[in-house]
Structure formats: structure tokens, C-alpha cells
């Protein structure tokens, strides 16, 4: 199925749950209700706030649909809008002074006088009387304050309640709904085939704005848009280039906005890719929701507060990493549930689809398990399984999310979810970080191992799998050199204690790329370190280092290679990590591997 068709299907699921507005309506953040008397007098201004968050915020409410307002001619929304339109007043951003916006107010008046002409509905007539009687000098007398002006207003007839006893707003009155339905139908363009549903319907010229993608414009960005003539074909204009019916465009937009909404459990921000995912309801609504929660945990395991909790999470997700079928993790889950994953990244006012995946949930869970299996390394650098953003952070200078290379997040996600190769840039980025002096920690070593393992499994040149934990018999020269480097560093630390620049700080990059130019010198210097140990109070430790160096050099058949390829630099890092943090050495004081699970992802 295509992206838009699948989203449109998800809209039906949301509509069944009553979580999305119907066609022609959208959910907007409304801050105030203007309560009108039947004569059009302002009775009072009621705040309309959601109390779920920490502080009171404008409350999301289904109102007649908003649209993008480009250009200079103001266009008003129906039966709601901000202060500039409703009252003709705004607050200047710089001077904080109240300013009149006569053109906006005129647009509001014009729209409502036109659509509401001849209405017999008491509420709508009250609005018309309000517009006739309104002037800016009544502002304070009616109870408005400057702080309200930037926010959205809607209207209500005094004392109007629906059958559940909740306030009924003007746009919820049946007469208003009928007028709005007619207005929406008239606004539609010509008929054509809809490439989402395949039926002949009015075609949407402009597509809905999608809000909530990280780094995109806050007013929303579009997936489907044709704002330059290079994008159009065969003389077609705007939406006719990609005929999608008004209803389908509304449906996919509402569904995507619901997925991207703040607090939606169906959204993950990983690098520059905002990822949304959902299941279809073929296995029942409950099964679908369970699958969505599980997927979120798989890609971003919840941070553990304490050891018990970490153990519980690990136990819950363990079967996945062992490649066991989904029914062992979540027996109530229908394995055939279709699952959809969509990765979006902004490009100014447009969204680009970074990856799109549709598969059974069981298959996706299995691939995530394989991803974890490829990452497995001893000693384990994480308490629960690693979240994807945590891996990507290791590729970024200064460990900052905004420094992650563009495209990389999307490609890594695609590799995880499809079971394909990791992008080559992932290995290169991790190695670049290590050579630039970032600590060689378990996460980086695990990424190296995962990249190499997957390449050898999927590639044409089958090589041995990289060991999970220290393998003293491994013959690969790069791996052995990595171990040797760790031993030499250990000898230096044992002999001299903490120094300003250890051999790792100085030579890691050179040693992993051009061993022949560095190792002979390092070995010469290590003689000095070993001599200090032998003559000092740790002769046995000196002997142990000497034995280890001998064991490693004994397995190197042909001297030091002049240079190592990037894959071998990865093996070097793994060998270094294994040797440095395994066994005895693991008991040493610093374990940089135990990564902080404190940073949350969004």
C-alpha cells in the first residue's frame, strides 16, 4: 500500500475511536470563548484551557478546518480565529502596543456576512449582530485583555448546552454545520480520479499542513506540494499533478497530524528523522495498540530508574534479542498485524519521506532482534537494549544530536527495520569520532561489530563473524593490533599512572590507520614502562603485560601492516575494546561503557 493510502486507512481507525475531527474540521488550539447574548452583546470571555499539562494551555478543539494563509490578502477562518480577525486588534511583537488590523477584521466580517446571510439560527444571528456592533473602543468594556489577542477565539451562545450538558459552540450548532458543509463542497476543485482511493471525487488543490515534524516550520509543512514550476508536469497546476481527493487529503493529513501530535505514543524522534508508526486494526484495536507500544519499546527502550526496573525491561525484551517469535513476548498480539513505519524529515516547507516500510509485526520484531544480536558485545555497555538515538549520538561531534549527519538516521532506521546493511557512513562516522579522540567506548565498538557482521552475512565475501567477547585466538591482524594497543596503553598507565596525554590520546588514530608507522615506536617505549613495573613494586603485573604482548605478537604472522582499511579499523576498535575492558581489566576503575540512560529522546 502507498503511504497516503495507509495513512487514510489509519484515519478510519482513529475515526472509529472518535479521536479525529470529521471531514472539513480540524483540531486547533483555542484559548477563549466569547459568550454572546442573542442580541449580539458580549456577555463574558471564558478561558478554554486544557488542564492535563503542567500549566494551563489553549485547549485543542475541533473547529471548521484551518488552511495555510500565504500572501498578503487576509483570509479568515469560519466561526473562530485570532484577535486580529475576530476583533481587528493585535499586539505588536516589538513595541508590545495594541495595533489595529482593519483588513483582517474586514475579511472576518466579509466571510461571515456572506456565509451567514439570511440565517434564522439564533446563535449565528447573534454573531452577525456582534459584528455589526463591534468597535475597538469597546475592547476593555467587554472584558478583553491584551494578553488574549495573540490567541484564538471561538463563539458560544449564552447558556447553550448540548445533550451531554457540555457547552455547545457556534460551529457545533446544526445550522452552522450545514453552512460549513456547503462551503467546503463549493470550495473543491474539479473532479478527477483520486490516486489514494481510485474513485472519481473532487480533487484537492492544496494539501493539509503537517505539524509536529522536528525542525520543520512550526506552522506546518506539506508532503504533497508544488510551489515551483519545475515540480509541475504537463501544464497541470498544484494538486492536479497528484490527484488526491479532498476527503483523502483531509484523511491522511488528520491521521498524520494525530500521529505526530505532542504526547502521541506513535512518534519517535531519531536524528533528523521524525518517525511515526501504526498498526492496522485487522487483529482488533487492542492488538494494534499493543503492537504500537511494543514497537516504541523496541526502538527506544524506556530508561530504567533502577536496577530492578532495568532487569524487568530486559526480561520483557529478551526474547526479541534472542530471535524468538513475537507470541512469546506478547501472546495476546496477532502476529499477522500489518505494521507501518514512516520516517519524515523536513526540507524547509516540505517534508521528505526518508523511509517507508510496511510489514507484519512479527517480521519487524524479528529484524529488531537481529539488530540487537549484531550489536551484542562483551562487556555489555548498556543495561537494557540500546535505543537507536543512543547509537546515532556516538557518530556526532560533541555527542550532540544536531550534529548527526543528515540522512544517516533515516538510513540506519531503514537498515534496522528491513534487515539490510547498515549505511557505510555509519561505520565511517564512528571511526572518525574515535580517531578524533572521542573515547573508545562499548557503544562505538558495538556499532563497528554490527556493521561488520551484517556486511559479512549479507555481502558476497563471507568472512568470519566478529567475536562477542575477547577471543585470544582470533587471528585477524587488525583485531590483534587493537588488543596490542590496549595492552601497551595498560602498561603505560600501570607504570606512570595518569599522564597528560596517554598513548591512546596521541596515537589511537595513527595506530588504527597506519600501524607500521606507530607500533615499533610504541613497543620501544613500552620496554621502558615494563622496566619501571619490574623494578617497582609491581613485578608480577609487568610480567603479565609482557606475556600478553608476546601472545599477541606471536599470532601476527607478517609484521605490522602499513595501512588498514576502514573495516579493519573497525576490527581494531573492537579488539581494543575487548582487551581493555574484558576480564581483569574490566575490574579496573573506569568503565566508560556503562552509558547514561538519563537523556530522553524527545
Amino acid at each position, binding site marked *: *500500500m*502507498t*503511504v*497516503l*493510502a495507509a495513512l487514510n486507512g489509519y484515519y478510519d481507525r482513529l475515526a472509529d475511536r472518535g479521536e479525529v475531527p470529521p471531514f472539513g474540521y480540524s483540531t486547533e488550539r483555542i484559548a477563549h470563548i466569547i459568550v454572546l447574548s442573542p442580541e449580539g452583546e458580549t456577555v463574558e470571555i471564558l478561558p478554554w484551557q486544557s488542564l492535563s499539562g503542567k500549566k494551563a494551555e489553549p485547549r485543542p478543539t475541533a473547529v471548521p478546518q484551518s488552511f495555510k494563509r500565504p500572501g498578503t490578502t487576509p483570509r479568515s477562518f469560519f466561526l473562530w480565529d485570532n484577535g486580529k480577525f475576530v476583533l481587528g486588534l493585535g499586539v505588536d511583537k516589538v513595541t508590545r502596543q495594541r495595533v489595529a488590523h482593519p483588513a483582517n477584521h474586514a475579511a472576518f466580517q466579509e466571510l461571515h456576512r456572506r456565509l451567514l446571510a439570511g440565517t434564522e439560527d439564533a446563535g449565528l444571528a447573534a454573531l452577525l449582530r456582534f459584528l455589526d456592533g463591534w468597535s475597538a473602543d469597546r475592547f476593555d468594556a467587554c472584558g478583553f485583555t491584551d494578553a488574549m489577542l495573540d490567541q484564538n477565539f471561538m463563539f458560544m451562545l449564552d447558556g447553550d448546552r448540548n445533550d451531554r450538558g457540555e457547552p455547545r459552540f457556534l460551529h457545533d450548532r446544526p445550522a452552522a454545520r450545514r453552512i460549513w458543509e456547503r462551503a467546503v463542497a463549493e470550495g473543491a476543485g474539479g473532479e*478527477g*480520479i483520486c*490516486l*489514494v482511493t*481510485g474513485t*472519481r471525487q473532487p480533487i484537492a488543490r492544496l494539501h493539509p499542513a503537517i505539524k509536529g515534524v522536528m525542525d520543520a516550520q512550526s506552522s506546518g509543512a506539506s*508532503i*504533497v*506540494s*508544488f510551489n*515551483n*514550476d*519545475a*515540480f509541475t*508536469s*504537463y*501544464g*497541470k497546476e498544484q494538486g492536479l*499533478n*497528484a*490527484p*488526491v481527493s479532498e476527503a483523502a487529503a483531509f484523511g491522511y493529513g488528520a491521521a498524520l497530524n494525530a500521529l505526530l501530535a505532542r504526547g502521541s505514543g506513535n512518534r519517535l524522534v531519531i536524528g533528523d528523522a521524525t518517525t511515526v508508526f501504526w498498526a492496522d486494526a485487522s487483529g482488533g484495536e487492542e492488538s494494534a495498540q499493543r503492537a504500537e507500544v511494543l514497537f516504541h519499546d523496541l526502538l527506544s527502550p524506556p530508561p530504567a530508574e533502577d536496577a530492578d526496573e532495568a532487569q524487568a525491561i530486559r526480561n520483557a525484551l529478551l526474547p526479541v534479542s534472542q530471535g524468538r517469535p513475537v507470541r512469546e513476548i506478547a501472546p495476546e498480539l496477532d502476529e499477522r498485524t500489518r505494521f507501518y513505519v514512516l520516517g519524515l*524529515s523536513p*526540507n524547509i516547507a*516540505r*517534508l*521528505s*519521506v*526518508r*523511509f*517507508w516500510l510496511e510489514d507484519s509485526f512479527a*517480521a519487524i520484531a524479528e529484524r529488531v532482534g537481529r539488530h540487537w544480536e549484531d550489536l551484542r558485545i562483551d562487556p555489555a555497555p548498556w543495561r537494557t537494549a540500546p535505543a537507536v538515538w543512543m547509537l546515532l549520538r556516538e557518530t556526532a561531534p560533541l555527542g550532540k544530536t544536531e550534529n548527526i549527519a*543528515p*540522512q544517516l538516521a*533515516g*538510513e540506519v532506521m*531503514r537498515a534496522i527495520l*528491513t534487515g*539490510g546493511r547498515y549505511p557505510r557512513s555509519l561505520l565511517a562516522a564512528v571511526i572518525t569520532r574515535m580517531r578524533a579522540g572521542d573515547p573508545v567506548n562499548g557503544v562505538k565498538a558495538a556499532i563497528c561489530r554490527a556493521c561488520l557482521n551484517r556486511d559479512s552475512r549479507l555481502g558476497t565475501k563471507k568472512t568470519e563473524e566478529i567475536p562477542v567477547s575477547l577471543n585470544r585466538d582470533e587471528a585477524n591482524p587488525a583485531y590483534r593490533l587493537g588488543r596490542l594497543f590496549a595492552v601497551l596503553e595498560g602498561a603505560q598507565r600501570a607504570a606512570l599512572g595518569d599522564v597528560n596525554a596517554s598513548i591512546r590520546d596521541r596515537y589511537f588514530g595513527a595506530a588504527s590507520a597506519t600501524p607500521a608507522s606507530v607500533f615499533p615506536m610504541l613497543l620501544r617505549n613500552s620496554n621502558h614502562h615494563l622496566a619501571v613495573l619490574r623494578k617497582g613494586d609491581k613485578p608480577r603485573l609487568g610480567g603479565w603485560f609482557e606475556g600478553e604482548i608476546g601472545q599477541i605478537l606471536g599470532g601476527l604472522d607478517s609484521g605490522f601492516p602499513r595501512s588498514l582499511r576502514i573495516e579493519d579499523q573497525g576490527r581494531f576498535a573492537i579488539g581494543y575494546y575487548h582487551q581493555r575492558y574484558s576480564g581483569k581489566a574490566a575490574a579496573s576503575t573506569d568503565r566508560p561503557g556503562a552509558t547514561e540512560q538519563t537523556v530522553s529522546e524527545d
Partner: protein
Amino acid sequence: MAYGVKLHVWGDRACFTRPEMKVERVSYDVMTPSAARGILEAIHWKPAIRWAIDAIEVLKPIRFQSIRRNEVGSRVPTAAVRKAMKAGAVEDLRMVAEENRQQRAATLLVDVAYVIHAHFELTERAGPGDSEAKHLSMFNRRAASGQCFQQPCLGVREFPANFALLEDGAAPVSELPLDQRDRDLGWMLLDIDHANDMTSLFFRAALRDGVMAVPPLNSVEVRS
């Protein structure tokens, strides 16, 4: 299909852009019929014949990759071309890509291979010298020797297509994995009806055992 041809095409990358995502391009999963027709026409086409695609067989796993490319945001307007034709001077007909450059993302297919099953029909512009046998042998001769009018491409010009004529019975082995052999591909662009106000024609595409059947232009399955 007495005049059927089978052409094996392959390439490192392909982008059969979906109309709804053609700015930040996203490719269809499978080559579109109009892209297949373009490849055949690059090898042999005359006003006397019209190519019709019967089926497209997918030989390689469907794999995506996203890259960024430099594209331009505008194009030379038709009016400017007309003016230049009238004046007989082309100095103003230029576009400097550097001044117009935009970086855009594209999610495209990597390592693709298809077999195009197609036939052609003679059009009303066929003269007395045009016979089906003549054009068939012209196509076969040109395709077998690798001749083409312009380099055939996989959706966009940047991704050239290699091609080889498949003689009777010869068929390359399909590497399409089992779980990708049957899938619904949604509504796909079939072609543009140039005679009818350049209407887009769509059909419901699906892979059945690795083969996408393409309905004829005038069939009831085609919607416009």
C-alpha cells in the same frame, strides 16, 4: 501477442517518481509502464508504431536508499521558447543551474533489474511500407546490437539503464525474495493521455508472483 518482445533492463539505481511525492522524490516500488515504454522508445520508435507494455517482471529485491541531489527549482517557460522561435535567436533561452540550485532529497531504488514484456501496434500513421514484421525485426536488430537513439534510463536521466534483448525462451533468474513476490502496489500511473488534455491514467498495480500485469490503455481497469 505475435509481435511481443522481451527486454531485460538493469541498473545500479532507479527512481520512478510517484506523482504525489515528486518534489522530494519517492520512487514507486516497481518500474512504471510509462518508464518501460520510454526505454523501448529509446531503442526503436517510429510514428508508425505504438508500444504497449504487457507486464513487468521484477528480478531483484526491492531496496530503497535515500540520497540528496542538486536539482533546479524553475524551468524555461514555454512563452520564452515561443519568443525565441519567432525571433530565431536563442540567447535568452538559458538557465544557469548555479543560480537556481536546490538541494532535494530522493528516496530511490538501488540495484534493480526487470524484464519488460511488450508489444507494438501499427498506428494510423503507418504507410504502405510499414509492416509489423519490419518494425519487429528493426527493434530486434537494434536491441540485440545495443543501439539506441538516446541512452535509456530508469525513471530519471541520471540513472542509465543497461539492456539486453531476450530471445525466445531465454529468461534471467529472478532473485526477488518470496515475501516480496506478492504485494499490492496501490494506484500507479499507467500513462498520460496526450490526446485528451494530457489526462493521467491510473491503474491498480499489484505484484503477483513477481510479475506486474499491465492493463491495456483502453481497458475498464484504467481510470482517468
